[in-house]
């Protein structure tokens, strides 16, 4: 009798502790799944991670918390991510689960074999048509990355002073000579919009965009042929205002110090939407074109949470998210094919983004940055 009682007591305790164990294990696990998302780019990238993607993701998958880490703008931001992922290379599980990076990162990371081939496993791969998702700076990256958005450099101008803006580089040069000091850009050391203008200049002067940015191969002998183009650019620089960065160009435009200048289209549209630039300011994409670049999601090979990371990318590259946040909220061109988002945005939004620079112009004159070796050589030569 006594034994029976003991037995039932023991079995009750066992069942209870088992239940407790299961319960605590699940809560433990729930608390423990933390997805580390590291992003380069401006502070708006941090805001996007912290206030939009993170909460949305946790709403959908309550057992995961997203931690957003921001490394800073430009290639320097991507460089910090690269250094972190590289440092984690030999660990069984790295600290970073998903990262948002620039084109140059892909080249560095592919050389070191740091990335997971994941893109074709997720549902939203079907919406990707951009050539930027297949090759980046001449490196084959298909499957290793998903573009979140595409950013394009354009010329912004103030129609109050410029009624008939220059439509190509040739006309820009004439315009600048007629209006000295009223064209402003940030050179090649002051940020990427200046770099983009310079690269566009070399594409225009040489007419070899295909070779430099798409097909290659890199030939050292090409560099010597840029001498004349660079000399003319230096001559051109005598008639322009050199500004102190992407933001400084927009500021100068806004204060009326300059009348035309290259800017990033998303930065410009956001500023315009926030009332930070004259609402009448317009944009134009000059022939033969200026470069733009996407930013990509990558997943390190040794992430501890590969499935969660894939779902994370899937969420952000879904047409709903792309329409609602990438296009409407942040004024970027979508990372997925624009046709898939048309159903999710209203006509006014679509117009605001594509009014001056139409999708046709974009596909014609929206160029890529050159292959990595040519890119380095152009920057070296332009100095």
């Amino acid at each position: 009798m006594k034994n029976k009682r003991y037995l039932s007591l023991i079995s009750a305790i066992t069942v209870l502790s088992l239940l407790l164990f299961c319960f605590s294990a699940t809560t433990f696990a729930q608390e423990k799944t933390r997805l580390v998302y590291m992003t380069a780019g401006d502070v708006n990238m941090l805001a996007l991670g912290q206030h939009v993607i993170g909460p949305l993701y946790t709403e959908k998958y309550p057992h995961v918390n997203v931690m957003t880490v921001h490394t800073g703008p430009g290639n320097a931001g991507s460089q910090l991510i690269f250094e972190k992922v590289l440092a984690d290379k030999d660990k069984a599980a790295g600290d970073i689960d998903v990262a948002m990076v620039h084109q140059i990162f892909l080249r560095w990371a592919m050389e070191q074999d740091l990335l997971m081939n994941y893109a074709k496993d997720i549902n939203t791969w079907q919406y990707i048509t951009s050539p930027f998702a297949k090759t980046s700076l001449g490196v084959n990256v298909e499957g290793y990355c998903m573009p979140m958005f595409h950013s394009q450099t354009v010329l912004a101008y103030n129609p109050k002073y410029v009624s008939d803006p220059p439509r190509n580089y040739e006309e820009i040069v004439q315009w600048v000579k007629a209006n000295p000091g009223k064209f402003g850009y940030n050179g090649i050391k002051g940020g990427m919009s200046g770099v983009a203008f310079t690269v566009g200049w070399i594409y225009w002067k040489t007419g070899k965009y295909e070779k430099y940015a798409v097909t290659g191969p890199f030939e050292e002998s090409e560099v010597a042929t840029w001498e004349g183009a660079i000399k003319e650019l230096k001559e051109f620089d005598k008639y322009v205002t050199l500004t102190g960065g992407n933001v400084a160009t927009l500021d100068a435009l806004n204060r009326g110090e300059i009348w035309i200048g290259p800017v990033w289209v998303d930065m410009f549209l956001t500023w315009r939407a926030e009332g930070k630039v004259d609402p009448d300011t317009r944009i134009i994409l000059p022939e033969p074109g200026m470069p733009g670049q996407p930013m990509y999601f990558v997943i390190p090979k040794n992430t501890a949470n590969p499935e969660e990371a894939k779902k994370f990318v899937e969420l952000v590259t879904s047409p709903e998210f792309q329409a609602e946040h990438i296009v409407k909220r942040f004024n970027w061109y979508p990372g997925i094919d624009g046709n898939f988002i048309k159903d999710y945005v209203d006509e006014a939004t679509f117009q605001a983004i594509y009014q001056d620079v139409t999708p046709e112009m974009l596909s014609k004159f929206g160029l890529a940055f050159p292959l990595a070796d040519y890119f380095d050589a152009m920057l070296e030569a332009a100095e």
Partner: protein
Amino acid sequence: MNKNRSNLPQKQNFGKKQAVQGIKKSPAYLLPFCLLLPAVSVIILLYIQPFLASFWGSFFTRRGEFGLQNYKLVLDRYLIDVYFTFAVTIFSTVVATILSILLGVYLRLSQGWVHKIVSILYRLPIFLPFVVVAQMMRSFLAPHGILNLLLAHFNLINIERPLQLFNWIGLSFGFVWKEAPFMVLLIVGGFQMIDDSYIEAAKSVGANLYQIITRVLIPMNKQTILVAVTLVFCSLVGCFSFPYMLIGGKTPSTITIDIAHRVTYFRDYGVANALGVFSYLMVSILAVYYVLNMRKGLYD
């Protein structure tokens, strides 16, 4: 005097030997070294090792070849930036020093409510980081910025031909605006250590204000001024955010902008390190002078 000097080292050596022998006998001989170990290892790990690694790295090109190629590139392409950095830094430091000594003298010798207000106001820029100063200067010094608009308002300039300040002038202006208050803080502290009796004694033998400053206040406060000059000079040589935001795309620019450019666009640590070596050289001129003076100060 000479005799004394020649005798001194011998005496010191004798004293040292005895002292060392005395300590060696006791087990406490190792204690000072143990106590020093944490501090010394921090200096070795965080300062000396990176410094040597950077110096060594300056001899390797991007492709891993050993040689002086990086220095050749720096001399060919960035020498003007090295001169520019040196000139702007020296100019800004000199101006900041003169201004801060003047303000320091005012704060030391004056009294009253103006004194109180000034002594609070001058400290504000110390708490602002350079990046904030940069953003302020960008809107203050711009061709159509606050300063030019103000001048145009009083018909002092034509706004269509504004003062161009996004160059060495604006850079020096920002440097002085940010760093002079820090110097004042140090220098006023030094001035306040000087007893009133010295100033009164000077006055009683007929010294005017200029003489009090140059014969009493500055000589008696030389060490502090030197510390302030060294700290400000070094921080200006290494300042990145402000020059980058003000004159980022222009030529000439500062060494730090070039370093960032080499690393960001080319991941070229070799040339970046070689550029770094030039800034070490600049800083070392003052550092050597500082150390020599401090030693003199200690033994006097």
